[in-house]
């Protein structure tokens, strides 16, 4: 193999796209050719540098909103109605009995979908430069930042003393609407706490679930739904949720 061929094939070698036979040929050439060996080293270094730098862009929220708006809106109600229409063919009594069941099934579906979405949002946030819109370890900076950006102001609580460092906040998009995310860190693990308004003010105690290797702790309190998502273990995420909830209660009472 000559240098001219190697200079093209070396890229496929770097990218792991060469079959074993060609890979050996290129490697053999590089072993005996200082020029190509040095080039390959540089290409690898540049590749590494690019992989480690922030070269991606984040889609503006406005763009996400415009696309969402152009798509038919998700409507849980019509689906439910069309299911019930089937039942209505039978006796009124069985339809009544079925309503509870259907509602439960659908609600679980909805919950599953929203959990999928918060995990996607969590994954998106981990890409370079996407994690936080407002960088601050001060709850009195993060909380006002949300004002005017959302129809609900997510509670921002400093849990540094409890071992969870507040690092900032972010606007995100879940379930076809804007949602606030408060971002915490424990060691190198990121916790996204998503907060959304709900019409239901009933308190729902925490549930832990796992999706795509991430743990989700979900609970509801005082008209807000919470999802804490992290790669932290279930025990530590539970600890986070417990500390957050007790700090919330202390705040309200104090």
């Amino acid at each position: 193999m000559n240098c001219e061929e190697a200079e093209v094939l070396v890229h496929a070698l770097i990218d792991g796209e060469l079959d074993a036979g060609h890979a050996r040929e290129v490697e053999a050439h590089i072993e005996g050719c200082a020029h190509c060996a040095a080039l390959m080293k540089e290409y690898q270094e540049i590749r590494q540098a690019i992989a480690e730098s922030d070269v991606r862009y984040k889609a503006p929220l406005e763009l996400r909103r415009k696309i969402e708006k152009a798509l038919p809106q998700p409507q849980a109600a019509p689906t439910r109605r069309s299911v019930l229409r089937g039942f209505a063919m039978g006796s009124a009594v069985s339809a009544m009995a079925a309503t509870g069941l259907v509602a439960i099934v659908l609600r679980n579906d909805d919950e599953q979908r929203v959990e999928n979405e918060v995990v996607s949002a969590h994954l998106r946030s981990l890409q370079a430069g996407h994690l936080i819109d407002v960088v601050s370890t001060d709850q009195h900076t993060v909380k006002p930042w949300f004002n005017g950006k959302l129809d609900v102001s997510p509670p921002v609580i400093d849990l540094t003393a409890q071992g969870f460092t507040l690092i900032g906040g972010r606007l995100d998009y879940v379930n076809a609407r804007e949602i606030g995310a408060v971002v915490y860190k424990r060691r190198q693990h990121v916790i996204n706490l998503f907060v959304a308004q709900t019409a239901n003010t009933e308190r729902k105690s925490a549930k832990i679930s796992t999706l795509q290797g991430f743990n989700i702790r979900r609970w509801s309190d005082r008209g807000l739904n919470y999802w804490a998502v992290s790669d932290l273990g279930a025990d530590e995420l539970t600890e986070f949720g417990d500390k957050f909830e007790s700090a919330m209660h202390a705040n309200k009472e104090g």
Partner: protein
Amino acid sequence: MVVKASQDDPEKARRFREAALPYLDDAYTLARYLLRDAADAEDAVQECYLRAFKHFDSYRGPAMKPWLFAILRNVCRAEYARRKTAPTAVEELPEGGDQTPLWNEAPETPERQLLRRFDGDTVRKLVAALAEPFRETFVLREIQNLSYREIADVAAVPVGTVMSRLARARAMLRSAWLAEQEQVK
């Protein structure tokens, strides 16, 4: 022109959201590099998603990301065509530019100095300065992590062309990188 989405299929919309919206940042990143303009990129991605939704019924694969990219690339090419007629046309590859020999960009053997690391803005600038079609190939490979086969499908060219374009792109970027390094010294 904006394609109007039909209003009668929330279930289709739900599946589409789940499948396609996670790639919104990827699509926007690609559009930014292809068009080098934030507002145009935004328009192109919006158009891409509406077209994708329209054709979502017939989507059977490949993976969602390359499928979206193929649509996005077509939208961006339409934008190139529009700009060409506009007074401030962007640079287009001269005829046969694809065949320019590699060694035009690959300078003398490196003298093993360490490559400097640049911040994200500088790296973005260097990548954005690559000429087409090398920029497109490079971004699909290095920033979007597509395989050669997927890049070939998105760009509608043979895999061999992907390989030669990528070799040129990396050689050009290496030269630009070294030049930048020289400048800030």
